């Protein structure tokens, strides 16, 4: 699929939203040989080019294809949960044109051979762009650094230990220093293993009644604050991959105010759901970090609005019945989400929490910029990766229709307003509703 579409295509009468230059208005998008040739109200000044396919997009919105910075996939090692092909099919159905695959595979993506495996498999089987993230430490064990330079050359777009938090501050410091020399980004999920030991949900009244060990918010913010101090010390390009608490947002805000080169991400789940959604021990809502209090969710929305949070991710994490059809405390963390990322995000737009342009910025433009990949824009010359939406279409999610091999969605039977109608990668239509 990576062969760019040959020829000229014209998408007329669409509302075009491009956060890269603050554009939001009705116009035309012209694609020539898989690249964007023009976008905007006056794109058709020269008339429709000869021999062009013309698509009437009245009532639809065109946005840059989403860039999902945090997608967990089971290939290699857990293909029954998800393959690169099935994840990319799910991504395409969700309007995601580029995804960053986490290194939590078996074997771990901590070696150049694995990076090459992912890129080759993606080339042969994926319908979207797939970028590997490599591990910071070998085997995600938090001790020995990976070959950051070689991995970067091979195509790793950032470094992360996936679900693991590096407990050793010296290892973290050195990884940050070393990565900085290569201009590589360190993306880190922070959860103190001891403070959260045995914890299965957010610490609070709900967990207290259910008798579950809780995961306190401090388990997230303590290592985060350590990391932010190390980022100040080393000048590293540090990305707090998945924050979930108001106090973490405050810590990021303070670090940015000091001028540090740090950024932060949040999962769509933590913008959309709270701990009460766990309800009757619903394991599809067992996530890491855990769903928090409504006050934290509100703080995430505020941080998204004010620029403290830069990126929204799906944190797509396929789990099958073996790992989810268990008592709550024994079940695995994680929910699939790449396919519902945009639809759930549109709830925030319809609620008036953020503008469509801000949402697309955090789901496409900013992640592309942070990763240094060619995506997230509709400017002339860019790859023709974009998504057509009907932002007012009401629909109900049927988990059985998900393209992912695993159906552990936190949005089963959810009512959404706004749906992906088409996804285009390099000018090729890879999904059509």
């Amino acid at each position, binding site marked *: 699929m990576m062969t760019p579409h040959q020829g000229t295509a014209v998408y007329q009468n669409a509302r075009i939203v491009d956060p890269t230059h603050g554009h939001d208005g009705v116009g035309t998008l012209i694609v020539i040989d898989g690249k964007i040739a023009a976008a905007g109200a006056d794109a058709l000044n020269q008339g429709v080019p000869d021999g062009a396919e013309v698509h009437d997009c009245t009532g639809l919105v065109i946005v840059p294809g989403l860039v999902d910075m945090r997608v967990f996939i089971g290939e290699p090692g857990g293909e029954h949960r998800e393959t690169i092909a099935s994840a990319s099919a799910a991504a395409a159905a969700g309007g995601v044109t580029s995804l960053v695959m986490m290194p939590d595979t078996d074997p771990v993506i901590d070696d150049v051979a694995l990076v090459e495996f992912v890129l080759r498999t993606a080339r042969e089987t994926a319908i979207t762009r797939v970028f590997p993230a490599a591990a910071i430490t070998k085997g995600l064990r938090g001790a020995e650094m990976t070959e950051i330079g070689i991995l970067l050359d091979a195509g790793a777009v950032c470094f992360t230990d996936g679900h693991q938090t590096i407990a050793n501050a010296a290892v973290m410091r050195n990884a940050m220093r070393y990565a900085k020399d290569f201009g590589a980004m360190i993306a880190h999920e922070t959860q103190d293993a001891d403070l959260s030991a045995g914890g299965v949900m957010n*610490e*609070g*009244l709900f*967990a*207290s*009644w*259910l*008798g*579950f060990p*809780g995961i*306190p918010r401090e388990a997230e913010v303590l290592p985060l604050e350590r990391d932010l101090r190390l980022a100040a010390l080393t000048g590293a390009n540090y990305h707090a991959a998945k924050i979930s608490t108001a106090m973490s947002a405050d810590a990021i805000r303070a670090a940015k105010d000091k001028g540090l080169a740090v950024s932060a991400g949040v999962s769509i789940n933590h913008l959309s759901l709270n701990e009460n959604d766990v309800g*009757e*021990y619903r394991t599809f809502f067992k996530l890491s970090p855990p769903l928090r209090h409504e006050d934290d969710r509100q703080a995430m929305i505020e941080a998204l609005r004010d620029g403290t949070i830069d990126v929204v991710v799906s944190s797509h994490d396929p789990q099958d019945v*073996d790992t989810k*059809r*268990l*008592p*709550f*405390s*024994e079940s695995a963390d994680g929910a699939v989400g790449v396919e519902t990322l945009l639809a759930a995000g549109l709830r925030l737009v319809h609620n008036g929490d953020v503008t469509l342009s801000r949402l697309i910025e955090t789901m496409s433009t900013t992640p592309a910029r942070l990763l240094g990949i060619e995506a997230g824009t509709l400017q002339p010359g860019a790859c023709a990766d974009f998504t057509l939406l009907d932002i007012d279409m009401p629909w109900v999610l049927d988990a059985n229709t998900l393209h992912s091999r695993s159906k552990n969605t936190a949005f089963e039977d959810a009512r959404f307003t706004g749906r992906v109608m088409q996804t285009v990668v390099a000018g090729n239509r890879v999904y059509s509703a």
Partner: protein
Amino acid sequence: MSAQTDFPIFPHRHLLGMAGLSYPDIETLLDRADTDVDVSRQREKKKSVLRGRTQINLFFEASTRTQASFELAGKRLGADVMNMSVASSSVKKGETLIDTAMTLNAMRPDILIIRHSAAGAAALLSRKVGCSVINAGDGAHEHPTQALLDALTIRRAKGRLDGLTVAICGDILHSRVARSNIILLNTMGARVRVVGPSTLMPAAIAQMGVEVFTSMKEGLKDADVVMMLRLQRERMTQALVPSVREYFRHYGLDAAKLALARPDALVMHPGPMNRGVEIASEIADGPQSVIEEQVEMGVAMRMAIIEALLDPRKNESRAA
């Protein structure tokens, strides 16, 4: 004796926890249990109301006392009782809880009694089987039959629950007995105190409808009932309490501390006791202790619960 018809129908299919039970629900169960105490004290201790019915006790956690109590309760009602314990089950072979439930369900039991180390296990099971389910303890969540037998013991000794001050002391954090008792006692109008070190309290204890004390001296003052909880030895290795010696000195129930409660205060313990850890031997065996009565009430209470859940009138009213 056809007492069955004298009681209101218990409007629940399962007993998964005290949460969701109303004042009249609880009162009905306690009234029924009073009659079952009489049955248990007869020479002929058997009723035939559940003749032909099958009860399966599914215990994933070892428990001699509770399992024996349920077994006896089922047998005194005339049911056929089967015990399945972890050691002899296929759970050890990797079968999941749900698979086990489906297998047992195919044997068409009328009632399943389950104990499991995971909170929510009974609720999960109840959604997968076609019979009534009783939660005999799920993780640190609930142990409703224990709370009910405690209430029965208190009501028979004090004549009421309403207005009594009950101090629940010790490891509240890990105690399903405490959670069920907090809910039941609040529903019935008692004043509930919890007493223990902060390290053994749930994070949000202040919002759980109880008065919180970290000192036994203050917490036991004028209490009508002192309910002690078992302290597991492993709490020491988890850095929750420093030593048995220190725990007993500050939180163990001895004569000096009990003297702060009302002179007629009841001393209770769900068992099994750690003598010299949370309770002194002379108190456990002393005149204020109702610990043995709790065991006796346990059988009657469980008879009443099983009877209420399998009340034949429920089917009649459905057919009508």
